């Protein structure tokens, strides 16, 4: 693609992820690793295949939600991008800059463009730090790295304004986290993410630990902030009704694979992947009358220690046929911004249980 310098900034996606892989070696003792496969003793290292080649991009100001059940790798994707984990493979471009191989020092300026909101409002704030220092920390780090004087005081001052912006006030600045409710703590976490004025916020289940009425407050705040600061969100959630409310586009993950991605309305009105369809019909709603076509899954998610051959979903899929065991389906474009990783796309006549 050849583009002029002027429009790169707008056209460059805020985040591009290509073939992201994340594996974790399972640390266990020698006895657990010992096997006698093939007649002689050998040491085997087990590896958790948490993320297996995930690709997507997020435009500036866009909200992409990753949904899926526990263990599907959605949070791992978030943490690999935020470089809490070092990715095992693939490319990550933030605002056009390839950061996959960056070390700590090179990564620091990038962190001013990307921040994170966490799931647990109790564990995500250091109980021994005052609120103003919690909120100030990312900015303070940036200022100190640039060698600017008075970093601590300046970052604290900025923190006060941020606290007000997220609905707290300056008196709260010198208190400790335990003096706040869950919803207020989540506001503090949001203020911390905003302190460096990032273009991308990675939100890992930001409302799932909150009561439903507080959930609405936080979702509204996040949407207001997006309008105000032009934020892009990578929004991780298991709650389809929340995702339906907040996302522009949705990616569905299963066992570390991205199985379907589509614009929100498209995904809810015309899901293609069997897993997406099962997920949508399993989600409880307050209005059971509008239940989608019933499709119930048997069994449970296979272990990420030993991925099934071929399609990751074939062990539970009511449509599975021989090709699904032999060949791993690739994510392919089916039009209208929708992509699906399923062999049924090529053989629609099999789409009958």
């Amino acid at each position: 693609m050849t583009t002029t310098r002027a429009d790169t900034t707008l056209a460059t996606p805020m985040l591009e992820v290509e073939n992201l892989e994340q594996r974790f070696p399972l640390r266990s003792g020698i006895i657990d690793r010992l096997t006698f496969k093939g007649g002689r003793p050998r040491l085997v290292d087990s590896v958790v295949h948490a993320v297996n080649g995930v690709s997507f991009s997020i435009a500036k100001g866009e909200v992409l939600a990753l949904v899926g059940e526990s263990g599907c790798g959605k949070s791992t994707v978030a943490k690999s991008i935020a470089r809490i984990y070092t990715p095992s493979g693939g490319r990550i471009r933030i605002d056009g800059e390839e950061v996959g191989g960056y070390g700590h020092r090179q990564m620091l300026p990038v962190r001013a463009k990307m921040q994170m909101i966490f799931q647990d409002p109790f564990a995500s704030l250091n109980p021994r730090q005052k609120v103003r220092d919690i909120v100030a920390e990312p900015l303070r780090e940036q200022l100190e790295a640039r060698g600017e004087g008075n970093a601590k005081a300046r970052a604290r001052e900025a923190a006060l304004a941020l606290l007000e912006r997220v609905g707290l006030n300056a008196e709260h600045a010198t208190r400790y986290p335990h003096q706040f409710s869950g919803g207020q703590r989540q506001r503090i976490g949001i203020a911390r993410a905003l302190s460096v004025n990032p273009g991308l916020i990675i939100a890992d289940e930001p409302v799932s630990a909150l009561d439903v009425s507080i959930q609405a407050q936080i979702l509204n705040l996040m949407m207001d902030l997006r309008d105000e600061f032009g934020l892009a969100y990578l929004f991780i959630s298991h709650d389809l009704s929340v995702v339906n409310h907040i996302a522009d586009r949705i990616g569905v993950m299963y066992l570390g694979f991205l199985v379907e991605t589509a614009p929100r309305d498209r995904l809810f009105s015309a899901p293609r992947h069997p897993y997406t369809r099962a997920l949508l019909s399993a989600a409880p709603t307050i209005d059971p009358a509008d239940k989608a076509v019933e499709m119930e899954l048997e069994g449970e998610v296979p272990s990420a220690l030993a991925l099934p051959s071929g399609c990751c979903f074939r062990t539970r899929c009511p449509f599975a046929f021989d090709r699904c065991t032999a060949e791993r389906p690739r994510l392919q474009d089916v039009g209208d911004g929708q992509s699906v990783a399923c062999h049924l796309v090529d053989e629609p006549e099999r789409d009958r249980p």
Partner: protein
Amino acid sequence: MDHQSATAPLLDVRDLRTWFHTFSGTVKAVDGVSFTLAPGEVMGLVGESGGGKSVVGFSLLGLIDPPGRIEGGEILLDGEDIARASEERLRRIRGREIAMIFQDPMTSLNPVKTVGAQMDEMLRLHTDLDEGARKARCVAMLESVGISRAAERLRAYPHQFSGGMRQRVVIAIALLASPRLIVADEPTTALDVTIQSQILKLMRKRIAETGAAMILVTHDLAVVSEMVDKIVVLYCGRVVETGPAREVIANPSHPYTRGLVDSIPNPKHRKPRLAQIPGAVPDIRNLPSGCSFRPRCPRAQARCAEVSPALAPTRGTLSAACHFPILEEVAAAMATTGGERA
């Protein structure tokens, strides 16, 4: 309503008060809760954290430990007040009359005993069956909750089951002695949605088959609306609204219930902003005067600060504890004019 008055209630909770005496003051976790449950009826006990819903559940089984205490009120099970029953009597009631299903199956299963041993123990305690009959019953029960190769799985330990399977085992144990009431405290909250829907479907089916009554304690209105006949909404230890499930969710008359329902994102009526209840649940040791919901309520007036409202019929089949209930029926999610700025 008519068929209910015809049969005597299985459970009649009257003015239940369960308080916790802590260093920083008395926590009135449950403060004057009343409801009745007919045989075979499924009731949802809903509310946000701090509402007291789990404490009600634990009170029913006599599982309140110091510094907590049932301070007053009656829990009539078939006319017998079990709030004052001896520990001896409660042990007989638990399992046989009332069974409990917890959120985390690991807390109710013993990790060092096989599933079979735990099921057998339940039957030995509560039935006169001989060993062969007990085993047959256990196998049949495991199969009925969808666990294959049941005879073999009896010898497995809890950690050898996945989360969903474990919850099935807990349900099987709960149903073993054919209790007449099951208290399920957030039984699917720890599970994934596809597993949750399996478990809910299973519970609905098995409970209908056995004719047991159930109290489902949950924060999730969507789960409740798919499962229960009637809903009791708690806020700060008191009942704020009760009525048939459909009606409570479609057209609640208490502003708190209205707020709860509206704050759930509804794909059918998508708006740029969700309706939100402002503020947070107050500190239960330091409740506001009058109605506890007053500081967060869009309809509050001077009277709400003075008199604590009593539960009274509001509209149709609903009852609410509110001086100014919502009397007009409004289509869901149209009632409030969007939330105010955060």
